[in-house]
């Protein structure tokens, strides 16, 4: 097994938790395919991509600095968003929910991180909103299982 596959496999089994996001690494995907597969997986979960932002381009254009490719996708489900906004009129501050795709320094390893909406939604200290964050989390975090599968070519 190549080092690349080994790293990816180890990471695939153990998702990495940070206090605000869940991440997983993949060794079988190119950056472009990973971004597309994240979009497809979000779509399957009825989460629409409302923002697509390439942070690496922004840093390059404004600061002339090179960083690894890094894309931020903002995802939203219209029904959940309406429910959140009806509960708390400033809930837009926590929307959309972000998924980031970044190239790691190990060649060929792509990391996908999904924000934990229970953390962002709990900012408002509104119990109803925190419950909605849990609902959103269930949907969002499932995409990590589908990113690689949707690339399987039989």
């Amino acid at each position, binding site marked *: 097994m190549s080092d690349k596959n080994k790293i990816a496999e180890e990471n695939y089994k153990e998702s990495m938790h*940070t*206090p*605000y*996001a869940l*991440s997983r690494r993949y060794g079988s995907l190119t950056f472009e395919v990973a971004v597309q597969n994240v979009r497809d997986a979000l779509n399957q979960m009825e989460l*629409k991509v*409302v*923002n697509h*932002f390439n*942070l690496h381009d*922004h*840093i390059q254009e*404004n*600061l002339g*600095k090179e*960083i690894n490719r*890094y894309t*931020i996708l*903002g995802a*939203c489900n*219209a*029904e959940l*968003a*309406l429910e959140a*906004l009806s509960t708390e*009129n*400033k809930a*837009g*501050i*926590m*929307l*959309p929910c*972000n*998924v*980031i795709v*970044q190239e790691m320094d190990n060649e060929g390893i792509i990391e996908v*991180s*999904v*924000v934990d909406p229970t*953390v*962002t939604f709990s*900012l*408002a200290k509104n119990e109803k909103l925190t419950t909605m964050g849990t609902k959103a989390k269930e949907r969002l975090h499932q995409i990590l299982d589908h990113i690689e599968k949707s690339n399987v070519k039989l």
Partner: protein
Amino acid sequence: MKYYHEKTLKDASFEEAIQKVTDALKEEGFGILTEIDVKETLKKKLDKDFRPYKILGACNPPFAHIALLAEDKIGAMLPCNVIVQQVNNGVEVAAVDPVASMQAVENEGLSEIAKEIQARLK
């Protein structure tokens, strides 16, 4: 801790408020990277009528770069949102308090940056 700073513009139309916010952010070195028209999206997706409401995603490239070096998954919390919505007595503008939102990250290196950004977004 309150997670936003707000101000109501009493004599501005919704469009004027958006322009004012854009100009004010620019003056502080923030570009608007993303814009979501909530009213339009809810109409299109759910056929619901909603008040004028926009979510603007603001980013200051040098700060974003420093934040990223301190915490490589920080993109999950970017950009900083500013919301503009029509309310009864004018147009309300609310900006996220990055000190509150970055607290969740539990990274001390970030809290200094967050404080700087907080001062600028105010």
